[in-house]
């Protein structure tokens, strides 16, 4: 399982944990040790891990705000342009800019663009879809990460990364199993 061929580069070292509590503890200690380029993997979201890794990314909210505003202005602009400029219909002298009648479509487009921003913003920031990722080279990861086990991988690009020392460090965290992740 743990074979390394000389041709493949190293992505990092991965530790496996049996329960969420150990993963949270490991993530906290890894962060405190000074590692920054590492990632915790779990089969469901664990808020304590976010805290332990100091993850706080609010960009999705910003995208949704911008998307919603874009939708709103698209809605207003479209209706004003159509109703007053491109195709004005004089019906018994009623105003062309009858803005209360433009509220529903403006509202729907605000929601629509906001939702697009949420979904595509999230996928974009997460770098998905991603057809290949080195972590899947670890058999234990493929077999358990999306089901019942918890993993923590320290990447080789981390400034503090040292193959032997990092491995020893992960062993000290009470990992059940440690694997090298090939690129």
């Amino acid at each position, binding site marked *: 399982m743990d074979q390394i061929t000389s041709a493949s580069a190293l992505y990092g070292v991965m530790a496996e944990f049996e329960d*969420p509590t150990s993963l949270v503890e490991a993530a906290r200690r890894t962060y405190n040790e000074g590692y920054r380029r590492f990632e915790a993997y779990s089969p469901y979201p664990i808020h304590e891990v*976010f805290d332990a890794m100091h993850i706080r990314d609010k960009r*999705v909210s910003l995208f949704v705000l911008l998307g919603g505003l874009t939708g709103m202005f698209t809605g207003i602009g479209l209706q004003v342009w159509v109703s007053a400029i491109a195709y004005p219909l004089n019906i018994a002298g009623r105003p062309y800019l009858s803005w209360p*009648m433009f509220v529903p*479509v403006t509202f729907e487009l605000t929601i629509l663009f906001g939702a697009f921003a949420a979904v595509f913003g999230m996928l974009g*920031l997460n770098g998905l879809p991603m057809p290949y990722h080195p972590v899947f080279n670890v058999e234990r990861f493929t077999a358990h990460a999306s089901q019942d086990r918890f993993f923590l991988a320290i990447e080789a690009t981390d400034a503090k990364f040292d193959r032997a020392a990092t491995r020893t460090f992960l062993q000290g965290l009470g990992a059940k199993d440690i694997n090298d992740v090939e690129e």
Partner: protein
Amino acid sequence: MDTHPVYAPPPVIEPGHTFNTVTEQIAGIVLTRRHPYSWFFGVFVGFMGTMMLLMAITWLLIKGTGIWGVNIPVGWGFAIINFVWWIGIGHAGTLISAILLLLKQDWRTSINRFAEAMTLFAVVCAGLFPLIHTGRPWLAAYWLLPYPNTMGVWPQFRSPLIWDVFAVSTYLTVSLMFWYVGLIPDLATLRDRAKSIYVRRLFGMLALGWRGAARHWERYEEAYLLLAGLSTPLVLSVHTVVSFDFTIGIIPGWHSTIFPPYFVAGAIYAGFAMVLTLAVPLRVLYHLEDFLTLRHLENMGKVMLVTGLIVAYGYVFEAFFGWYSSNQYEQFMIYNRMFGPYWPFYWSLILCNIVMPQLLWKKRIRTSPAMLFFISMFVNVGMWLERFEIVVTSLHRDFLPSSWGMYWPTRWDLMTFFGTIALFTMLFFLFIRVLPMISIFEMRTMVPAAKVKGAKAH
């Protein structure tokens, strides 16, 4: 201080489950389990009915709307009745997935996935009617969509029918995205569990390479919460806009300010009835009693009772305002609804939507799946009758007695309507075969082992 334990609701998952048993049981339905014969029966019946629907639509496109029962004065018939009925059914799915998420109702976890699928399929069935109701769907392009065409014609943005187009298409798109985003982690689980290389590749493509990284989860949860926050006003707006189709008109019985809230409550009412109609057989057929517990069924029964009472309030005030308006047309409309030629429809509606659900006051009935199924069937029928009442009895006798008429559906109307029920059934049966009908990753968070020890409760 009194140290007796305060009342805690029963858990949303039966005790004794681990990450593995949850994953195994839900993913197994898709990947390994043999399906009961009733599955094949359901798909077969749904498929045959869908063929009937296609035949009815084909004949409509050849002949035009003359094959339907619509006439003058009743220019709006089955097409709008069924449209409103279906779109209302869809609302419960969004309510469960979005509003209950924002309210932190963790029992929603077991039912949100298939309720969202129900929403999608109901909106598909609903969307079919506006598309075909002119008999000439290709003309809808420039009637409804604002695009620069060679005629220089643009849609009328002051018409609620255009608002409908925007509301329903936004609703379908956002529901689809919400559902898909919720599915991504489960698709990854299916990818990793699949034995066959083709199945793994298929789920792998759909899972987009999801690997459960903490940084991904954090953005994922934020996006999911924001989608819920966007869907909540959206779902309320959709049926409000649908009710504008009526209230903007000046027909007696339509031109009423009570319509938007009463339509939204009715939609949730109909939707929960449909969720129960689907959940009760599903939990037995696929042995999901551990995840779809009596607590879920009871809660849905309670929601049905509350929304049913709001709907009853709507009926009472509709009648009251009809009388209180001192407008002879409004007064006659109410009288005509209750005692006119369509009186059996009105009183069956009262029986189905107001009388029968009162049984839900009793806990013994709320916790009996068979009784809940029975009552939900009444509500499904009742809500359809309500749409029929609103559309037909308002139109068939309006201001001038010389232009009164009657409306009865033809066999093509009926074939189209029952055809959409079959289409819905077929889509739903196919869904439970190919995708996990309960959110696996959210069920994992309900397992006792998922708790991080020593952490503050979130």
